[in-house]
Protein backbone atom coordinates (compact mmCIF):
# COMPACT_ATOMS: atom_id res chain seq x y z
CA UNK A 1 0.00 0.00 0.00
CA UNK A 2 2.58 2.59 1.09
CA UNK A 3 6.18 1.98 -0.01
CA UNK A 4 8.01 1.77 3.33
CA UNK A 5 11.72 1.24 3.77
CA UNK A 6 12.76 -1.53 6.21
CA UNK A 7 13.56 1.12 8.89
CA UNK A 8 10.14 2.73 8.50
CA UNK A 9 8.52 -0.68 8.72
CA UNK A 10 10.39 -1.40 11.95
CA UNK A 11 9.30 1.96 13.36
CA UNK A 12 5.64 1.26 12.52
CA UNK A 13 5.87 -2.22 14.06
CA UNK A 14 7.49 -0.74 17.21
CA UNK A 15 4.73 1.85 17.61
CA UNK A 16 2.02 -0.73 16.96
CA UNK A 17 3.49 -3.12 19.54
CA UNK A 18 3.74 -0.23 22.03
CA UNK A 19 0.11 0.68 21.52
CA UNK A 20 -1.14 -2.93 21.70
CA UNK A 21 0.91 -3.66 24.83
CA UNK A 22 -0.47 -0.50 26.44
CA UNK A 23 -4.01 -1.53 25.57
CA UNK A 24 -3.36 -5.00 27.03
CA UNK A 25 -2.09 -3.51 30.30
CA UNK A 26 -5.12 -1.20 30.39
CA UNK A 27 -7.51 -4.16 30.01
CA UNK A 28 -5.68 -6.09 32.75
CA UNK A 29 -5.83 -3.13 35.12
CA UNK A 30 -9.58 -2.92 34.52
CA UNK A 31 -10.00 -6.54 35.70
CA UNK A 32 -7.55 -6.18 38.58
CA UNK A 33 -7.67 -2.57 39.90
CA UNK A 34 -5.19 -3.41 42.67
CA UNK A 35 -2.43 -3.90 40.06
CA UNK A 36 -0.52 -0.63 40.02
CA UNK A 37 2.78 -0.57 38.23
CA UNK A 38 3.90 2.68 39.87
CA UNK A 39 3.16 1.13 43.27
CA UNK A 40 5.33 -1.90 42.42
CA UNK A 41 8.12 0.44 41.31
CA UNK A 42 7.87 2.40 44.57
CA UNK A 43 8.47 -0.83 46.53
CA UNK A 44 11.71 -1.36 44.60
CA UNK A 45 12.85 2.14 45.52
CA UNK A 46 11.96 2.00 49.20
CA UNK A 47 13.53 0.17 52.08
CA UNK A 48 11.72 -1.97 54.61
CA UNK A 49 12.46 -0.38 57.97
CA UNK A 50 12.00 -3.69 59.77
CA UNK A 51 14.65 -5.56 57.82
CA UNK A 52 17.11 -2.87 56.70
CA UNK A 53 20.63 -3.01 58.08
CA UNK A 54 22.63 0.03 59.24
CA UNK A 55 24.47 0.22 55.90
CA UNK A 56 21.22 0.17 53.92
CA UNK A 57 19.64 2.83 56.15
CA UNK A 58 22.58 5.19 55.67
CA UNK A 59 23.08 4.39 51.96
CA UNK A 60 19.45 5.13 51.16
CA UNK A 61 19.90 8.56 52.85
CA UNK A 62 16.71 8.03 54.83
CA UNK A 63 18.73 8.48 58.01
CA UNK A 64 22.00 10.10 58.92
CA UNK A 65 24.46 7.70 60.58
CA UNK A 66 23.52 8.98 64.07
CA UNK A 67 19.77 8.77 63.36
CA UNK A 68 20.23 5.26 61.92
CA UNK A 69 21.92 4.13 65.16
CA UNK A 70 19.05 5.60 67.23
CA UNK A 71 16.48 3.88 65.03
CA UNK A 72 18.23 0.51 65.26
CA UNK A 73 18.43 0.85 69.04
CA UNK A 74 14.68 1.64 69.08
CA UNK A 75 13.92 -1.36 66.88
CA UNK A 76 16.01 -3.63 69.09
CA UNK A 77 14.17 -2.43 72.18
CA UNK A 78 10.57 -2.27 70.88
CA UNK A 79 10.59 -4.88 68.14
CA UNK A 80 9.42 -4.44 64.52
CA UNK A 81 7.77 -1.14 63.65
CA UNK A 82 4.07 -1.40 62.76
CA UNK A 83 3.66 2.13 61.43
CA UNK A 84 6.08 4.88 60.43
CA UNK A 85 4.36 7.33 62.80
CA UNK A 86 5.84 5.30 65.72
CA UNK A 87 9.21 6.85 64.83
CA UNK A 88 8.02 10.14 66.37
CA UNK A 89 8.93 8.61 69.73
CA UNK A 90 12.60 8.49 68.79
CA UNK A 91 14.57 11.40 70.15
CA UNK A 92 15.71 13.77 67.41
CA UNK A 93 13.16 12.58 64.84
CA UNK A 94 11.97 15.86 63.36
CA UNK A 95 8.85 16.25 61.20
CA UNK A 96 11.01 16.83 58.14
CA UNK A 97 12.97 13.63 58.75
CA UNK A 98 9.71 11.73 59.27
CA UNK A 99 8.44 12.98 55.89
CA UNK A 100 11.67 11.81 54.30
CA UNK A 101 11.22 8.39 55.93
CA UNK A 102 7.66 8.17 54.57
CA UNK A 103 8.97 9.06 51.11
CA UNK A 104 11.79 6.51 50.99
CA UNK A 105 10.72 3.70 53.34
CA UNK A 106 7.85 1.40 54.20
CA UNK A 107 7.15 -1.06 57.03
CA UNK A 108 6.37 -4.70 56.60
CA UNK A 109 6.71 -7.34 59.37
Amino acid at each position, binding site marked *: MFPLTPQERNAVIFLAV*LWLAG*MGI*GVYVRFDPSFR*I*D*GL*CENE*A*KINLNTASYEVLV*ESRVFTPAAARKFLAYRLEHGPVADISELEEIKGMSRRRLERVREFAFVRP
Partner: protein
Amino acid sequence: MPFCAVVFCAGIWLAAKTFLPFFCAGVVCFLALSGAVIWRGNNRVMIALFFLFVFAMGALRGVCARPGVLLGNQGRDAARLAGRVCTFWGKISSDPLIRNGRTGFVMDLSAYACPESARVSRGTVYMVVDGELPFEFGEEIAVRGALCSARGPAGRINRMPRMRVASSALVKKYGAGGSFSFKRLAFKLRSCLEGRIFAYMHGLPARIMAAMLFGKKYLIPPLVNSDMMKSGTVHILVISGFHVTLVACLVVFVLKLFRVGRRVRFCIALPCLAAYCLLTGGSAPVLRATVMSAVFLAAYPLRRDPDIHNAWALAALILLSLNPQELFNLGFQLSFVSVLAIIYVYPLLKRYTGFEKLKLRLIRPITEGFLVSLAAWAGTAGIIACACRMFSPVTVIANIVIVPLSSLITLAGFSLIAAAFLCPAAAPCCGRVCELLLLVLLKVNALFIKLPHAYFTW
Protein backbone atom coordinates in the same frame (compact mmCIF):
# COMPACT_ATOMS: atom_id res chain seq x y z
CA MET B 1 44.88 15.37 17.84
CA PRO B 2 44.20 12.92 20.70
CA PHE B 3 47.79 13.50 21.84
CA CYS B 4 47.14 17.26 21.79
CA ALA B 5 44.15 16.76 24.06
CA VAL B 6 46.18 14.62 26.47
CA VAL B 7 48.99 17.21 26.56
CA PHE B 8 46.43 20.00 27.17
CA CYS B 9 45.01 17.95 30.08
CA ALA B 10 48.53 17.52 31.47
CA GLY B 11 48.96 21.30 31.44
CA ILE B 12 45.71 21.83 33.33
CA TRP B 13 46.68 19.15 35.85
CA LEU B 14 50.08 20.77 36.43
CA ALA B 15 48.46 24.17 36.98
CA ALA B 16 46.03 22.67 39.48
CA LYS B 17 48.62 20.70 41.46
CA THR B 18 51.35 23.37 41.61
CA PHE B 19 51.35 27.10 42.28
CA LEU B 20 52.42 27.86 38.75
CA PRO B 21 52.28 31.64 38.27
CA PHE B 22 50.27 33.10 35.42
CA PHE B 23 53.32 34.98 34.15
CA CYS B 24 55.45 31.81 33.80
CA ALA B 25 52.77 29.93 31.89
CA GLY B 26 52.25 32.95 29.62
CA VAL B 27 55.96 33.33 28.88
CA VAL B 28 56.42 29.62 28.09
CA CYS B 29 53.37 29.80 25.84
CA PHE B 30 54.72 32.77 23.94
CA LEU B 31 58.24 31.35 23.61
CA ALA B 32 56.99 27.94 22.45
CA LEU B 33 54.73 29.48 19.79
CA SER B 34 57.49 31.80 18.60
CA GLY B 35 59.95 28.90 18.48
CA ALA B 36 57.52 26.76 16.52
CA VAL B 37 57.11 29.55 13.95
CA ILE B 38 60.85 30.24 13.73
CA TRP B 39 61.82 26.54 13.38
CA ARG B 40 58.93 25.62 11.12
CA GLY B 41 61.46 24.28 8.62
CA ASN B 42 62.54 21.54 11.05
CA ASN B 43 59.57 19.23 11.51
CA ARG B 44 60.68 17.51 14.70
CA VAL B 45 61.58 20.71 16.51
CA MET B 46 58.41 22.42 15.31
CA ILE B 47 56.20 19.55 16.47
CA ALA B 48 57.95 19.39 19.86
CA LEU B 49 57.56 23.16 20.36
CA PHE B 50 53.94 22.96 19.20
CA PHE B 51 53.15 20.36 21.86
CA LEU B 52 54.98 22.49 24.43
CA PHE B 53 52.76 25.38 23.34
CA VAL B 54 49.63 23.22 23.79
CA PHE B 55 50.89 22.13 27.21
CA ALA B 56 51.57 25.74 28.23
CA MET B 57 48.11 26.79 26.95
CA GLY B 58 46.56 24.10 29.13
CA ALA B 59 48.57 25.33 32.11
CA LEU B 60 47.58 28.93 31.36
CA ARG B 61 43.91 28.03 31.10
CA GLY B 62 44.17 26.02 34.31
CA VAL B 63 45.80 28.93 36.13
CA CYS B 64 43.02 31.29 35.01
CA ALA B 65 40.32 28.92 36.25
CA ARG B 66 42.00 28.12 39.56
CA PRO B 67 39.87 29.04 42.63
CA GLY B 68 41.45 32.00 44.37
CA VAL B 69 42.84 33.57 41.23
CA LEU B 70 40.55 36.52 41.03
CA LEU B 71 39.53 37.97 37.76
CA GLY B 72 36.90 39.99 39.56
CA ASN B 73 36.33 40.81 43.21
CA GLN B 74 34.23 37.79 44.07
CA GLY B 75 36.58 36.10 46.51
CA ARG B 76 37.36 39.25 48.49
CA ASP B 77 33.72 40.36 48.67
CA ALA B 78 32.49 36.93 49.73
CA ALA B 79 35.01 36.74 52.56
CA ARG B 80 34.23 40.28 53.73
CA LEU B 81 30.44 39.97 53.56
CA ALA B 82 30.11 36.52 55.16
CA GLY B 83 27.56 36.67 57.98
CA ARG B 84 26.41 40.26 57.31
CA VAL B 85 22.83 40.96 56.19
CA CYS B 86 22.85 42.69 52.79
CA THR B 87 20.63 43.07 49.77
CA PHE B 88 21.87 41.44 46.58
CA TRP B 89 20.64 42.19 43.09
CA GLY B 90 21.20 39.88 40.19
CA LYS B 91 19.84 37.41 37.67
CA ILE B 92 18.91 33.74 38.06
CA SER B 93 21.45 31.87 35.96
CA SER B 94 20.33 28.28 36.44
CA ASP B 95 17.08 26.38 36.27
CA PRO B 96 15.56 26.74 39.78
CA LEU B 97 15.48 23.40 41.55
CA ILE B 98 12.56 22.79 43.92
CA ARG B 99 13.17 19.98 46.38
CA ASN B 100 11.97 19.21 49.92
CA GLY B 101 10.13 22.52 50.14
CA ARG B 102 13.19 24.59 49.21
CA THR B 103 14.23 26.33 46.01
CA GLY B 104 17.87 26.33 44.97
CA PHE B 105 19.40 28.30 42.13
CA VAL B 106 22.56 30.06 41.04
CA MET B 107 22.42 33.83 40.93
CA ASP B 108 24.72 36.09 38.90
CA LEU B 109 25.25 39.16 41.05
CA SER B 110 25.16 42.65 39.61
CA ALA B 111 25.20 44.73 42.80
CA TYR B 112 24.86 44.55 46.56
CA ALA B 113 24.12 46.94 49.39
CA CYS B 114 24.91 46.56 53.06
CA PRO B 115 24.53 49.12 55.88
CA GLU B 116 27.99 50.63 55.25
CA SER B 117 28.19 50.62 51.47
CA ALA B 118 26.57 49.83 48.17
CA ARG B 119 28.52 48.80 45.12
CA VAL B 120 28.49 47.05 41.81
CA SER B 121 29.71 43.51 42.08
CA ARG B 122 30.40 40.47 40.01
CA GLY B 123 30.24 36.82 40.83
CA THR B 124 27.87 33.98 41.39
CA VAL B 125 26.16 32.84 44.56
CA TYR B 126 24.26 29.63 45.15
CA MET B 127 20.94 30.54 46.80
CA VAL B 128 18.75 28.21 48.84
CA VAL B 129 15.38 29.73 49.74
CA ASP B 130 12.84 28.16 52.09
CA GLY B 131 9.63 27.82 50.14
CA GLU B 132 8.77 27.22 46.49
CA LEU B 133 9.48 30.21 44.30
CA PRO B 134 7.72 30.66 40.94
CA PHE B 135 10.82 32.19 39.35
CA GLU B 136 12.43 31.14 36.11
CA PHE B 137 15.84 31.16 34.55
CA GLY B 138 16.92 34.64 33.52
CA GLU B 139 14.68 36.63 35.87
CA GLU B 140 16.11 39.55 37.81
CA ILE B 141 15.62 39.35 41.55
CA ALA B 142 16.63 41.11 44.74
CA VAL B 143 17.43 38.99 47.79
CA ARG B 144 17.96 40.07 51.36
CA GLY B 145 20.13 37.84 53.48
CA ALA B 146 23.64 36.96 54.60
CA LEU B 147 26.26 34.98 52.75
CA CYS B 148 27.46 31.83 54.47
CA SER B 149 31.10 31.68 55.53
CA ALA B 150 33.43 31.77 52.56
CA ARG B 151 35.29 28.80 53.96
CA GLY B 152 33.70 25.38 53.69
CA PRO B 153 34.74 22.16 55.42
CA ALA B 154 38.44 21.78 56.24
CA GLY B 155 38.95 25.51 55.80
CA ARG B 156 38.87 25.40 52.00
CA ILE B 157 37.60 28.50 50.26
CA ASN B 158 34.33 27.72 48.46
CA ARG B 159 34.46 28.36 44.77
CA MET B 160 30.87 29.51 44.87
CA PRO B 161 29.62 31.35 47.96
CA ARG B 162 26.31 30.14 49.30
CA MET B 163 23.39 31.95 50.84
CA ARG B 164 20.50 30.46 52.79
CA VAL B 165 17.34 32.63 52.79
CA ALA B 166 14.84 31.76 55.52
CA SER B 167 11.75 33.11 53.81
CA SER B 168 10.56 33.54 50.25
CA ALA B 169 9.23 36.97 51.27
CA LEU B 170 12.85 38.17 51.26
CA VAL B 171 13.12 37.50 47.53
CA LYS B 172 11.56 40.03 45.16
CA LYS B 173 11.40 40.20 41.40
CA TYR B 174 12.37 43.46 39.74
CA GLY B 175 12.74 44.53 36.16
CA ALA B 176 10.41 43.73 33.30
CA GLY B 177 11.47 40.10 33.22
CA GLY B 178 14.45 38.29 31.75
CA SER B 179 15.60 39.03 28.24
CA PHE B 180 15.31 36.42 25.51
CA SER B 181 17.91 33.69 25.61
CA PHE B 182 18.09 30.27 24.01
CA LYS B 183 18.75 28.68 27.38
CA ARG B 184 15.55 30.15 28.80
CA LEU B 185 13.62 28.89 25.82
CA ALA B 186 15.22 25.45 26.22
CA PHE B 187 14.21 25.30 29.91
CA LYS B 188 10.64 26.29 29.06
CA LEU B 189 10.53 23.61 26.40
CA ARG B 190 11.85 21.10 28.91
CA SER B 191 9.12 22.04 31.42
CA CYS B 192 6.51 21.60 28.71
CA LEU B 193 7.82 18.19 27.67
CA GLU B 194 8.18 17.05 31.28
CA GLY B 195 4.59 18.04 31.87
CA ARG B 196 3.56 15.58 29.14
CA ILE B 197 5.46 12.77 30.88
CA PHE B 198 3.89 13.50 34.26
CA ALA B 199 0.45 13.72 32.64
CA TYR B 200 0.57 10.12 31.39
CA MET B 201 2.91 8.42 33.89
CA HIS B 202 2.70 8.37 37.66
CA GLY B 203 4.94 8.31 40.69
CA LEU B 204 8.43 6.86 40.54
CA PRO B 205 8.34 5.68 36.89
CA ALA B 206 7.52 9.24 35.79
CA ARG B 207 10.45 10.63 37.79
CA ILE B 208 12.88 8.06 36.42
CA MET B 209 11.69 8.77 32.88
CA ALA B 210 12.15 12.53 33.39
CA ALA B 211 15.68 11.84 34.65
CA MET B 212 16.51 9.57 31.70
CA LEU B 213 15.19 11.95 29.06
CA PHE B 214 15.90 15.40 30.51
CA GLY B 215 18.74 14.93 32.96
CA LYS B 216 16.86 15.67 36.21
CA LYS B 217 18.86 13.17 38.22
CA TYR B 218 17.73 14.58 41.58
CA LEU B 219 14.28 13.06 40.94
CA ILE B 220 15.70 9.55 41.34
CA PRO B 221 15.51 8.11 44.87
CA PRO B 222 18.92 7.50 46.49
CA LEU B 223 18.28 3.75 46.81
CA VAL B 224 17.66 3.33 43.07
CA ASN B 225 20.78 5.37 42.35
CA SER B 226 22.95 3.32 44.68
CA ASP B 227 21.55 0.01 43.34
CA MET B 228 22.36 1.08 39.79
CA MET B 229 25.86 2.10 40.91
CA LYS B 230 26.40 -1.36 42.38
CA SER B 231 25.51 -2.99 39.06
CA GLY B 232 27.57 -0.43 37.13
CA THR B 233 24.58 0.73 35.10
CA VAL B 234 23.97 4.14 36.68
CA HIS B 235 25.05 5.77 33.42
CA ILE B 236 21.64 4.92 31.91
CA LEU B 237 19.91 7.17 34.46
CA VAL B 238 21.81 10.24 33.33
CA ILE B 239 21.88 11.96 29.99
CA SER B 240 24.87 10.52 28.22
CA GLY B 241 26.25 10.05 24.79
CA PHE B 242 23.78 7.28 24.19
CA HIS B 243 20.82 9.64 24.55
CA VAL B 244 22.40 12.28 22.33
CA THR B 245 23.14 9.66 19.66
CA LEU B 246 19.57 8.41 19.94
CA VAL B 247 18.19 11.94 19.51
CA ALA B 248 20.42 12.46 16.48
CA CYS B 249 19.24 9.17 14.95
CA LEU B 250 15.60 9.98 15.70
CA VAL B 251 15.80 13.43 14.12
CA VAL B 252 17.52 12.06 11.02
CA PHE B 253 15.00 9.23 10.83
CA VAL B 254 11.96 11.53 11.13
CA LEU B 255 13.35 13.83 8.44
CA LYS B 256 13.98 10.77 6.25
CA LEU B 257 10.28 9.88 6.61
CA PHE B 258 9.49 13.22 5.00
CA ARG B 259 11.98 12.43 2.22
CA VAL B 260 14.26 15.32 3.15
CA GLY B 261 17.65 15.19 1.40
CA ARG B 262 20.59 13.72 3.30
CA ARG B 263 22.64 16.92 3.46
CA VAL B 264 19.66 18.96 4.68
CA ARG B 265 18.81 16.24 7.22
CA PHE B 266 22.25 16.44 8.77
CA CYS B 267 22.19 20.24 8.75
CA ILE B 268 18.84 20.26 10.58
CA ALA B 269 19.98 17.60 13.06
CA LEU B 270 22.88 19.79 14.27
CA PRO B 271 20.77 22.61 15.80
CA CYS B 272 18.37 19.98 17.18
CA LEU B 273 21.29 18.38 19.00
CA ALA B 274 22.41 21.78 20.29
CA ALA B 275 18.87 22.41 21.55
CA TYR B 276 18.78 19.04 23.31
CA CYS B 277 22.14 19.78 24.87
CA LEU B 278 20.83 23.12 26.23
CA LEU B 279 17.60 21.53 27.32
CA THR B 280 19.33 18.89 29.41
CA GLY B 281 21.65 21.33 31.14
CA GLY B 282 24.81 20.78 29.09
CA SER B 283 26.75 18.48 31.44
CA ALA B 284 30.15 17.09 30.43
CA PRO B 285 28.88 13.76 28.97
CA VAL B 286 26.15 15.55 27.01
CA LEU B 287 28.53 18.17 25.62
CA ARG B 288 31.04 15.48 24.76
CA ALA B 289 28.48 13.45 22.88
CA THR B 290 27.02 16.53 21.19
CA VAL B 291 30.41 17.65 19.88
CA MET B 292 31.28 14.13 18.70
CA SER B 293 27.88 13.70 17.03
CA ALA B 294 28.23 17.15 15.45
CA VAL B 295 31.59 16.15 13.97
CA PHE B 296 30.04 13.06 12.42
CA LEU B 297 26.95 14.89 11.18
CA ALA B 298 28.99 17.76 9.75
CA ALA B 299 31.37 15.42 7.95
CA TYR B 300 28.87 14.43 5.25
CA PRO B 301 27.88 17.97 4.07
CA LEU B 302 31.55 18.96 4.17
CA ARG B 303 32.49 15.86 2.15
CA ARG B 304 35.01 14.68 4.76
CA ASP B 305 35.51 11.34 6.44
CA PRO B 306 34.74 11.56 10.15
CA ASP B 307 37.44 10.30 12.49
CA ILE B 308 36.36 9.19 15.94
CA HIS B 309 39.79 9.83 17.50
CA ASN B 310 39.80 13.48 16.36
CA ALA B 311 36.14 13.88 17.35
CA TRP B 312 36.97 12.66 20.86
CA ALA B 313 39.96 14.98 21.10
CA LEU B 314 38.02 17.99 19.79
CA ALA B 315 35.26 17.40 22.34
CA ALA B 316 37.86 17.23 25.13
CA LEU B 317 39.61 20.41 23.99
CA ILE B 318 36.35 22.36 23.70
CA LEU B 319 35.07 21.29 27.12
CA LEU B 320 38.37 21.95 28.86
CA SER B 321 38.84 25.31 27.15
CA LEU B 322 35.42 26.38 28.46
CA ASN B 323 35.96 25.02 31.96
CA PRO B 324 39.34 23.47 32.83
CA GLN B 325 38.08 22.35 36.25
CA GLU B 326 35.94 19.77 34.44
CA LEU B 327 39.11 17.66 34.20
CA PHE B 328 38.67 16.83 37.90
CA ASN B 329 34.94 16.14 37.56
CA LEU B 330 34.14 12.43 37.90
CA GLY B 331 31.45 12.62 35.20
CA PHE B 332 33.91 14.12 32.73
CA GLN B 333 36.56 11.50 33.50
CA LEU B 334 34.19 8.55 33.21
CA SER B 335 32.60 9.87 30.04
CA PHE B 336 35.85 10.45 28.18
CA VAL B 337 37.80 7.48 29.50
CA SER B 338 34.97 5.06 28.67
CA VAL B 339 34.79 6.33 25.09
CA LEU B 340 38.58 6.21 24.80
CA ALA B 341 38.57 2.63 26.07
CA ILE B 342 35.87 1.66 23.58
CA ILE B 343 37.81 3.31 20.73
CA TYR B 344 41.14 1.61 21.50
CA VAL B 345 40.40 -1.50 23.56
CA TYR B 346 37.28 -2.80 21.79
CA PRO B 347 39.03 -3.45 18.41
CA LEU B 348 41.83 -5.28 20.24
CA LEU B 349 39.38 -7.44 22.15
CA LYS B 350 37.46 -8.17 18.97
CA ARG B 351 40.61 -9.28 17.17
CA TYR B 352 42.14 -11.37 19.96
CA THR B 353 38.99 -13.11 21.18
CA GLY B 354 38.08 -14.35 17.71
CA PHE B 355 34.41 -13.31 18.10
CA GLU B 356 34.48 -11.55 14.73
CA LYS B 357 34.83 -14.93 13.09
CA LEU B 358 31.45 -16.04 14.47
CA LYS B 359 29.00 -16.67 11.69
CA LEU B 360 25.75 -16.72 13.68
CA ARG B 361 23.95 -13.41 13.10
CA LEU B 362 21.89 -13.68 16.29
CA ILE B 363 24.89 -14.14 18.58
CA ARG B 364 26.94 -11.35 17.01
CA PRO B 365 25.06 -8.40 18.63
CA ILE B 366 25.36 -10.12 22.02
CA THR B 367 29.09 -10.75 21.66
CA GLU B 368 29.72 -7.23 20.37
CA GLY B 369 27.72 -5.80 23.26
CA PHE B 370 29.75 -7.93 25.65
CA LEU B 371 33.05 -6.71 24.20
CA VAL B 372 32.00 -3.04 24.22
CA SER B 373 30.83 -3.39 27.82
CA LEU B 374 34.07 -5.15 28.75
CA ALA B 375 36.19 -2.46 27.08
CA ALA B 376 34.30 0.37 28.84
CA TRP B 377 34.49 -1.45 32.18
CA ALA B 378 38.21 -2.07 31.78
CA GLY B 379 38.77 1.63 31.16
CA THR B 380 36.66 2.94 34.03
CA ALA B 381 37.07 0.30 36.76
CA GLY B 382 40.11 2.02 38.23
CA ILE B 383 38.48 5.46 38.38
CA ILE B 384 35.30 4.04 39.97
CA ALA B 385 37.33 2.05 42.49
CA CYS B 386 39.21 5.22 43.55
CA ALA B 387 36.26 7.62 43.55
CA CYS B 388 33.37 5.43 44.70
CA ARG B 389 35.32 2.72 46.56
CA MET B 390 33.46 0.10 44.62
CA PHE B 391 34.43 -2.72 42.33
CA SER B 392 31.63 -4.29 40.35
CA PRO B 393 32.43 -7.45 38.35
CA VAL B 394 28.75 -7.87 37.45
CA THR B 395 28.90 -4.65 35.40
CA VAL B 396 29.87 -6.36 32.16
CA ILE B 397 26.96 -8.81 32.13
CA ALA B 398 24.49 -6.34 33.61
CA ASN B 399 25.21 -3.83 30.86
CA ILE B 400 24.52 -6.41 28.14
CA VAL B 401 20.97 -6.77 29.45
CA ILE B 402 20.23 -3.35 30.92
CA VAL B 403 21.61 -1.10 28.17
CA PRO B 404 19.31 -2.51 25.43
CA LEU B 405 16.42 -2.35 27.92
CA SER B 406 17.21 1.29 28.69
CA SER B 407 17.38 2.08 24.98
CA LEU B 408 13.91 0.56 24.63
CA ILE B 409 12.71 2.68 27.56
CA THR B 410 14.21 5.84 26.05
CA LEU B 411 12.59 5.13 22.69
CA ALA B 412 9.29 4.46 24.43
CA GLY B 413 9.70 7.74 26.36
CA PHE B 414 10.24 9.76 23.21
CA SER B 415 7.28 7.96 21.62
CA LEU B 416 5.16 8.97 24.62
CA ILE B 417 6.12 12.62 24.17
CA ALA B 418 5.41 12.46 20.44
CA ALA B 419 2.05 10.74 21.09
CA ALA B 420 1.15 13.35 23.72
CA PHE B 421 1.32 16.05 21.05
CA LEU B 422 0.31 14.19 17.88
CA CYS B 423 -2.11 11.51 19.08
CA PRO B 424 -3.23 12.06 22.71
CA ALA B 425 -5.54 9.02 22.51
CA ALA B 426 -2.50 6.71 22.23
CA ALA B 427 -0.47 8.46 24.93
CA PRO B 428 -1.94 6.58 27.95
CA CYS B 429 -1.01 3.26 26.27
CA CYS B 430 2.59 4.48 25.79
CA GLY B 431 2.63 5.66 29.41
CA ARG B 432 1.59 2.25 30.75
CA VAL B 433 4.22 0.46 28.66
CA CYS B 434 6.92 2.90 29.85
CA GLU B 435 5.92 2.20 33.47
CA LEU B 436 6.07 -1.56 32.87
CA LEU B 437 9.48 -1.35 31.20
CA LEU B 438 10.84 0.70 34.10
CA LEU B 439 9.50 -1.87 36.58
CA VAL B 440 11.28 -4.60 34.59
CA LEU B 441 14.48 -2.49 34.66
CA LEU B 442 14.36 -2.13 38.45
CA LYS B 443 13.60 -5.82 38.97
CA VAL B 444 16.38 -6.97 36.61
CA ASN B 445 18.85 -4.64 38.29
CA ALA B 446 17.86 -5.96 41.72
CA LEU B 447 18.47 -9.52 40.44
CA PHE B 448 21.96 -8.67 39.22
CA ILE B 449 23.11 -7.06 42.46
CA LYS B 450 21.85 -10.07 44.43
CA LEU B 451 24.23 -12.40 42.54
CA PRO B 452 27.15 -13.66 44.63
CA HIS B 453 30.21 -11.36 44.44
CA ALA B 454 28.30 -8.92 42.24
CA TYR B 455 30.09 -5.95 43.77
CA PHE B 456 32.62 -5.13 46.45
CA THR B 457 32.76 -1.97 48.53
CA TRP B 458 35.29 -0.82 51.12
